[in-house]
């Protein structure tokens, strides 16, 4: 691969504002209102007037169109807008694409957001099932792989079979992430501790995955504001630079039911990591804190391998000894993540990554200078490297 003429976006843009709504099982406001609230909070955080926003970046699953965002917030002409597909795989892509557009001068102030209500039909990939299954899902849904958890349970079982991983390893992930949520007053599981006994005794959702291997059902929204480096210095908050960004659809990939390539346990994160690190000045061993997409606990283990924190098959063992805890070698999902803060298609992971780089996390990693944020493993994915 020759990309000598390419100009990577390394540190040329920064996230200067973050915003989140409350998170709850049910919020009264519609998705549109939640989106507007989160964006407004993010712009106030940055000290930028909504009329200055000229770039909009969102998920294809987003229920609120760009024109609604723009006319409600009183934006002037928006000169760049785009969406990324594949649900939870989109998040870092939504932010990274906005960074590329800002770096290339297609817009000056970009907002990326996600607003999601569990009751909204469009937000739940399995909510639209009818008695006829079209497209890729015709190869799996009729046989009873109905929900995302069923699809990931198949990969998890295979992983356990090949590498000797056990539920103890999945429990390591769930309890570490919960311990972070217990320090975050905004997390839905803030007041609920999770013990190993509770985990082991939990009801099955799709064996080998139990209740606590699943992300929360949440209503809520998040937003970030992206500007060029020179503009970032004038904003209210310490800039958090987007050091590297990558997306990937690996060879012969099928979203969620990724069983049809040579080695389904080498997921999309591997190809994403290859570009991410190639454009970076540092590597996995330099990462101080990570926000790894956790719709399901085994995805964290697969991501640890894909992004190079350990070798293939070693991700489960990597979690032993509270590695992912605040005092561990790699604190992960320090806001509580999708498992214990809220599930907003991974957008809260991006906000938490920014908070860590600003020194403002509820589970602050002392002196943290680098953060990896990833989006959905098992689907076409994306990742960001943030630094301060």
């Amino acid at each position, binding site marked *: 691969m020759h990309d000598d003429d390419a100009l990577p976006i390394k540190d040329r843009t920064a996230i200067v504002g973050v915003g989140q709504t409350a998170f709850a099982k049910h919020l009264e406001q519609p998705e549109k209102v939640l989106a507007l609230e989160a964006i407004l909070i993010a712009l106030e955080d940055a000290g930028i007037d909504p009329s200055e926003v000229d770039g909009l970046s969102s998920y294809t699953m987003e229920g609120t169109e760009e024109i609604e965002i723009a006319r409600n917030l009183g934006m002037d002409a928006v000169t760049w807008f785009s969406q990324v597909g594949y649900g939870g795989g989109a998040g870092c892509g939504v932010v990274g694409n906005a960074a590329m557009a800002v770096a290339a001068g297609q817009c000056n102030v970009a907002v990326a957001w996600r607003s999601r209500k569990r009751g909204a039909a469009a937000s739940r990939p399995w909510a639209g099932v009818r008695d*006829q299954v079209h497209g890729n899902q015709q190869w799996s849904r009729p046989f009873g792989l109905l929900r995302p958890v069923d699809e990931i349970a198949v990969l998890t079982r295979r992983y356990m079979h090949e590498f000797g991983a056990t539920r103890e390893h999945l429990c390591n992930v769930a309890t570490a992430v919960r311990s972070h949520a217990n320090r975050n007053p905004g997390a839905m599981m803030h007041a609920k501790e999770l013990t190993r006994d509770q985990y082991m005794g939990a009801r099955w959702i799709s064996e080998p995955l139990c209740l606590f291997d699943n992300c929360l059902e949440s209503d809520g929204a998040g937003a970030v504001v992206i500007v060029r480096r020179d503009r970032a210095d004038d904003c209210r908050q310490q800039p958090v630079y987007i050091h590297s960004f990558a997306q990937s659809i690996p060879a012969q990939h099928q979203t969620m039911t990724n069983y*049809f390539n040579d080695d389904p346990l080498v997921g999309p994160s591997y190809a994403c990591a290859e570009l991410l690190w190639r454009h970076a000045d540092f590597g996995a061993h330099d990462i101080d804190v990570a926000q790894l997409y956790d719709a399901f606990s085994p995805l964290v283990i697969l991501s640890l391998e894909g992004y190079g924190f350990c070798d293939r098959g070693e991700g489960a063992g990597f979690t032993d000894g509270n590695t992912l805890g605040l005092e561990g070698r790699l604190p992960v999902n320090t806001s509580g993540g999708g498992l214990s803060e809220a599930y907003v298609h991974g957008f809260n992971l991006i906000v938490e990554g920014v908070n860590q780089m600003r020194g403002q996390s509820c589970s602050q990693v002392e002196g943290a200078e680098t953060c990896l944020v990833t989006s959905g493993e098992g689907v076409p994915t994306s990742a960001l490297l943030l630094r301060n």
Partner: protein
Amino acid sequence: MMPMLLPAPDDDSRAFWAYCAAGELRVQRCASCGRRRMPPRPMCPSCRSFDAEWELLSGRGTVWSFAVPHPPLLPAYAEQAPYGVIVVALDEDPTLRMVGNLVTEAGAPLNSVDPHTIEVGEPVEVVFAPVERAEGEDLLALPQWRRR
């Protein structure tokens, strides 16, 4: 109550499901370079040929992995839960895989085999559960798997 889900045959899959209705497990094989592919699609990813034939397979394979879903599930599935869903690696090429159910005989319930007795690596063979179709509808049968 809503019935169990059925595949909707389309341009890529119609032939596959029709062969199932005839009691044959066939996968696409590139007529130019010979590469097999699954799920079906118009083009060979190795040589980009649009020409393919449908190769008859032995219908034998091994369990590559499985899940055991529990409710909440769609009603027609919830009443059979917990049930096993297996992914089968086909003998002719273990990187060709298919999702299905391990059952005692064609058309038996999803839980006709105790899902907690399923083992990764165990040998299975295909059986076909016929699906009643109205006049003019695409022919269709569901490939299922039994122990061998």
